[in-house]
């Protein structure tokens, strides 16, 4: 396999396919300035029918359908030919098996056909690394909130350490499963926020479960469904759900912040697009004299750039690449198992 040529800049292609999003992106890395720049980013999101969730097989078919077009377009927008790419990266996990395999197959094919070095990336790490690159924060406490993750993390001794996480379902699952129950199409976060804003702001009591720095949402899911079954006002249920769930998250972030005494908080992942959550976090974080950084909304959800950027960090620090036959996927690849060599 050829090595990355000695030159001032190189291009990395990132392929993301962990769940509902198939995305590709090219990042140009300047070896002199040590800076990356996203020069193209495209994605296509699998849309499940109203009231139902992601079907892994259907989602993977969607990815297969869309991948040739996305790949071609992302190269055109970057004004590159496939053979001019210097590094190929793909999300190897955690995620849905059938979906991950689509990304891995494309990455392996490109790598072996064009003889380009290949590198696997942990999807969750990608969220954090891209968030840090775009917001330029240095040593943050990270709140990772998405359909697949609800974690409070801080970096120490070569790994992202989990200070708190959900003990059952994630915040994204709570929002989506409740949203689907009342007939929305996932992802439902945005719609629930709209409903909450239109409510009369009457608060219904819901289970508020904080255990140390951990949270639990499954009881709240059942409780909100019951409220709907008993004919409570749907807008106010959405309001109460947001108020309770986000207050729990804000509390654990403040707890971890007070413990670690960090001065920066970074919020990443799909749910960070929610305005109510960031308003609450801002209030709590200000009390602790820290600053809130949030990933720009466009890059908050899953995307190829997070994969490409993490691959670049990995490759320039340690020259990591893998053989095509080793480019497998890991559906359960926990973030706190990844050794981060570049921090």
């Amino acid at each position, binding site marked *: 396999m050829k090595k990355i040529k000695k030159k001032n800049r190189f291009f990395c292609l990132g392929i993301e396919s962990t769940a509902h999003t198939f995305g590709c992106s090219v990042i140009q890395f300047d070896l002199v300035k040590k800076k990356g720049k996203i020069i193209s980013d495209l994605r296509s999101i699998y849309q499940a029918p109203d009231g139902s969730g992601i079907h892994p097989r259907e989602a993977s078919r969607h990815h297969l359908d869309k991948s040739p077009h996305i790949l071609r377009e992302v190269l055109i927008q970057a004004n590159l030919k496939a053979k001019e790419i210097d590094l190929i990266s793909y999300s190897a*996990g*955690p995620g849905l098996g059938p979906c991950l395999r689509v990304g891995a197959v494309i990455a392996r094919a490109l790598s072996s056909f064009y003889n380009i070095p290949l590198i696997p990336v942990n999807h969750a790490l990608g969220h954090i690394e891209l968030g840090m690159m775009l917001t330029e924060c240095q040593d943050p406490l990270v709140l990772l909130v998405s359909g*697949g*993750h*609800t*974690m409070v993390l*801080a970096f*120490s*001794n070569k*790994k992202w*350490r*989990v*200070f*708190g*996480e*959900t*003990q*059952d379902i*994630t915040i994204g699952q709570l929002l989506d499963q409740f949203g689907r129950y009342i007939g929305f199409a996932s992802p439902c976060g945005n719609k629930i926020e709209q409903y909450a804003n239109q409510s009369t702001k009457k*608060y219904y*009591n819901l289970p*508020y479960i*904080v*255990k*140390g*720095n*951990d949270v639990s949402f499954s009881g709240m899911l059942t409780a909100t469904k019951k409220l709907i079954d008993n004919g409570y006002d749907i807008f106010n249920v959405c309001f*109460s759900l947001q*108020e*309770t769930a986000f*207050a729990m998250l*804000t*509390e654990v972030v*403040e*707890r*971890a*912040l*007070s*413990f*670690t005494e960090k001065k920066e908080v970074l919020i990443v992942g799909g749910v960070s697009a929610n305005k109510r959550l960031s*308003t*609450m*976090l801002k*209030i*709590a974080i200000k*009390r*602790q004299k820290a600053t809130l950084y949030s990933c720009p909304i466009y890059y908050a959800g899953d995307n190829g750039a997070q994969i490409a950027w993490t691959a670049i960090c990995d490759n320039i620090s340690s020259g990591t690449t893998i053989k095509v036959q080793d480019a497998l996927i890991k*559906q*359960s*690849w*926990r973030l706190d198992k990844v050794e981060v060599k570049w921090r």
Partner: protein
Amino acid sequence: MHYRIIKRGAEADVYLIPWYKTMAISKLRSPKKYRNITLDNLIRGRRTIHEATMLNDVKTTGIKTPFIYFLDLKRAEIIMEYIDGENVKNILSPEIGFEMGKYVSILHNKNIIHGDLTTSNFIKRKDDLYLIDFGLSFYSQRIEDMATDIRIIKEILSSAHIQIFYDTYKRFLKGYELTTNNNFSRILKVVKDIEARGRYARVV
């Protein structure tokens, strides 16, 4: 009264105040602006009562906790004894871990679940170890709740104290095992179960 803030915590602010002829701690759960007001009042009231009750109840087990001087439920404020010692978060060692393990098992023997076992909630004054912050505590006989307590301490040891995690956690469990009246191996098994419920967790 002169108030000096010594800790801006996540759920309460801790002040050092003069109290008659000595110094005392005022733990004030001031309203959280980010939280819905109905929910906020409920949580602050509940935790203040819980904490005050538990600080007293725990004393019967022989575990050292601060004495309560005064309680103001309207303000959600507890005024209590000032423990002038070192925070264990800064001086943790496997030996202190051993003592912590003993403390936690004594609590669990009396069906008390602390609910927020972090190293910063232990204070060492000379030879005495104090346990504070009972805002999230409750009574339970469930193995699941005891295991949750242990998992919380494991989580904080493996994140904030990763350099000495293995030895400290081992000594913690040893201390726990020595004094526990509960089925230790079952509790450990449930700790693993809880970890396995974590997202993408694969506990071997």
